[in-house]
């Protein structure tokens, strides 16, 4: 298939691995931000093909994983309300709240539906005017524009029975939180190509400068990742820092300006709790004052729901690159995809799920 096969060629992968082997002379720790990249790395076995001196740690870029438990409990509280149609992307359905998950709410008679687009949720609201339709808006800058567009459309068309439960998070503040931590291990970043497709990479330039660290905007196919790793390793070996762009077929420095315009109109930046990490200042989106009427947490008064994270799950340390999933005592024992203690074991982008799915032998 065009635009896919050329990025999965075994011969080219071998060549790129040779270049990497020639480049590396010292040990380095590199973090890929995005959970999609984590899965490609493990799925294609790249983590096992790299020189031993290269350590990959896995970043916080899994939208499902960083959604705090209390937000899932709020979603479940709304989904259990009679007459409500609660809509969500598939990934969120199996993530356990403190008592239930959304699939169990469905099994008990709740109207929980999986949608592929927030605009499908908006369509459901138009088709069911007597019912409240709520969309669970999770994700990074990648999913935010479509979600903003759905709210924008709802207001323009006067669809009053539509609202979103927003748990959006932003990448650059999370990178800063990792880098500013005294026990940070990360020496170079692969930035998430899809986030940068929307936002560009100007935001990363001051971070790379401040922490004197290389950041390479990287795509999602095996060869993208190999090339991104080669670029970041070359920069580290040569003592360079700054932002480079491996994913130039999709990403520009300025990003998608119309998408950014909708984002800045519908959302405003706010402090946001991250699962296992805690509150990171100015790291999330909430609906701006003009769109506050579409905020499901206000409409259904679930803001008061507060939940403590379970102590045994070390998701926070994994997502900050301090530990690998296999270092968790519960991994593969108390915590499995059937009995997940934390979201990274559930989500298709979660690091624990990737290790469990591809590495257990």
């Amino acid at each position, binding site marked *: *298939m065009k635009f*896919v096969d050329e990025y*999965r*060629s*075994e011969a080219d*992968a*071998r060549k790129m691995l040779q270049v990497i082997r020639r480049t590396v002379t010292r040990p380095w720790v590199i973090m890929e931000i995005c959970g*999609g990249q984590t899965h490609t790395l*493990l*799925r*294609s*076995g*790249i983590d*096992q*093909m790299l020189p031993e001196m290269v350590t990959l740690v896995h970043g916080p870029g899994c*939208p*499902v994983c960083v959604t705090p438990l209390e937000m899932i409990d709020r979603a479940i509280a709304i989904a259990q309300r009679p007459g409500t149609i609660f809509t969500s*992307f*598939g*990934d*969120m*359905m*199996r993530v356990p709240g403190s008592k239930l998950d959304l*699939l*169990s709410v*469905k*099994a*008990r008679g709740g109207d929980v*539906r*999986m*949608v*592929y687009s927030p605009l*499908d949720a908006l369509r459901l609201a138009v088709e069911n005017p007597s019912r409240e339709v709520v969309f669970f808006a*999770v*994700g*990074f800058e*990648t*999913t935010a524009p479509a979600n903003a567009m759905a709210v924008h459309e709802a207001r323009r068309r006067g669809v009053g029975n539509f609202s979103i439960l927003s748990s959006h998070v932003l990448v650059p503040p999370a990178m800063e939180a990792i880098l500013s931590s005294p026990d940070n291990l990360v020496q170079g970043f692969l930035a998430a190509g*899809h986030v940068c497709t929307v936002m560009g990479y100007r935001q990363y330039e001051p971070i790379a400068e401040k922490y004197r660290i290389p950041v390479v905007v990287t795509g999602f196919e*095996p*060869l993208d990742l190999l090339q991104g790793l080669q670029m970041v390793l070359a920069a580290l070996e040569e003592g360079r820092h700054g932002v480079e762009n491996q994913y130039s077929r999709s990403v520009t420095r300025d990003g998608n300006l119309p998408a950014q315009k909708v984002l800045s109109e519908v959302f405003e930046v706010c402090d946001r709790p991250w699962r296992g990490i805690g509150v990171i200042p100015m790291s999330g989106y909430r609906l701006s004052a003009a769109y506050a009427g579409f905020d499901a947490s206000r409409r259904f008064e679930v803001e008061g729901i507060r939940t403590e994270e379970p102590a045994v799950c070390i998701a926070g340390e994994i997502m900050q690159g301090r530990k690998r999933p296999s270092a968790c005592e519960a991994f593969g024992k108390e915590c499995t*995809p*059937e*009995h997940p203690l934390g979201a990274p074991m559930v989500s*298709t*982008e979660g690091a624990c799920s990737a290790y*469990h*799915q*591809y*590495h*257990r*032998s």
Partner: protein
Amino acid sequence: MSDDLGGKLAAPTCPIPISDYPTILMAHGGGGRLTQMLIEKLFVSSFDNPALAELHDGAILEAGGARLAFSTDSFVIHPLFFPGGDIGSLAVHGTVNDLAMCGARPLALSSGLILEEGLPIDDLWRIVRSMEAAAKASGVPIVTGDTKVVDRGKGDGVFINVSGVGLVPPGVSISPRRARPGDVVIVSGEIAVHGVAILSVREGLKFETTLETDSAPLNGLVEALLAAAGEKVHVLRDPTRGGVATTLNEIAAQGRVGIRLDESAIPVGEEVRGACEILGLDPLYVANEGKCLVIVDPSAAGLALETIRAHPFGRAAAVIGEVTAEHSGKVFLRGRIGGLRLLDLLTGEQLPRIC
């Protein structure tokens, strides 16, 4: 009455911890780990007998010197009509194929219909005609049946159960336990076609494609294969729910062997690949309805592949892997860029990803 007997009369404890799954979830029917848990912990332990313990697509029963294959399957698909087929043809093909996967020549089928009040008679007529056409094409008559009607809202239009019996020819012995290290794994054509065709017409997810279901009766293909390669054919299985990955995991577990696949050898059509890339689905876990997996002795692999390819339903057949002594009970996949990874069972249905 002794305390002992009283204990036996008391309701037995459900072997699946109630606290984990107090209600049935859709994933219990998805073919993955939760389905296996139901089968092993509830059904096999309750119905316990040697024919069931084989856990094949159908049971083999000795009767008057002959070996009968007996199989049943229920169909609850939505929508009822989809590109290239409908619930009627699917139900007939499903049970014909389950019998064929036992190495049997299907003899006859039953038709159990559960109809929902309000179903248009025209729809039922189309479904029944389609069942008849499918039965005729596969050469297996529907010889008995039953019909029930449930209140509106208590069914999904039509549910169909089709059971069937067949005869296993002498010299044929098909079982996952016959898989041997060195055996060759063949798939009879492009995978994941049925699942993607159904997704393309599902509410909320309609997308344009020319794909049609691959639903087809495989008894003719299997008969030709067994005539050519006979007892060298060790295992047959149709990778329906849960797809190729799930089916091979079941075979590896039951046969206590490892299976190693080569990703670049697995035939996946362009349209299916495109749809799976966009939706974030792995075609190895997507359902098939007209495909079978064949595990065959290496000495007969070439002949088997040639025979399958000569059949109209097997033209795109390919060797996709081999049975190994290492990694018993597990399936490994050599990826496109050369890495080796575990191809695990999924917990439930594949859920489309966020981004």
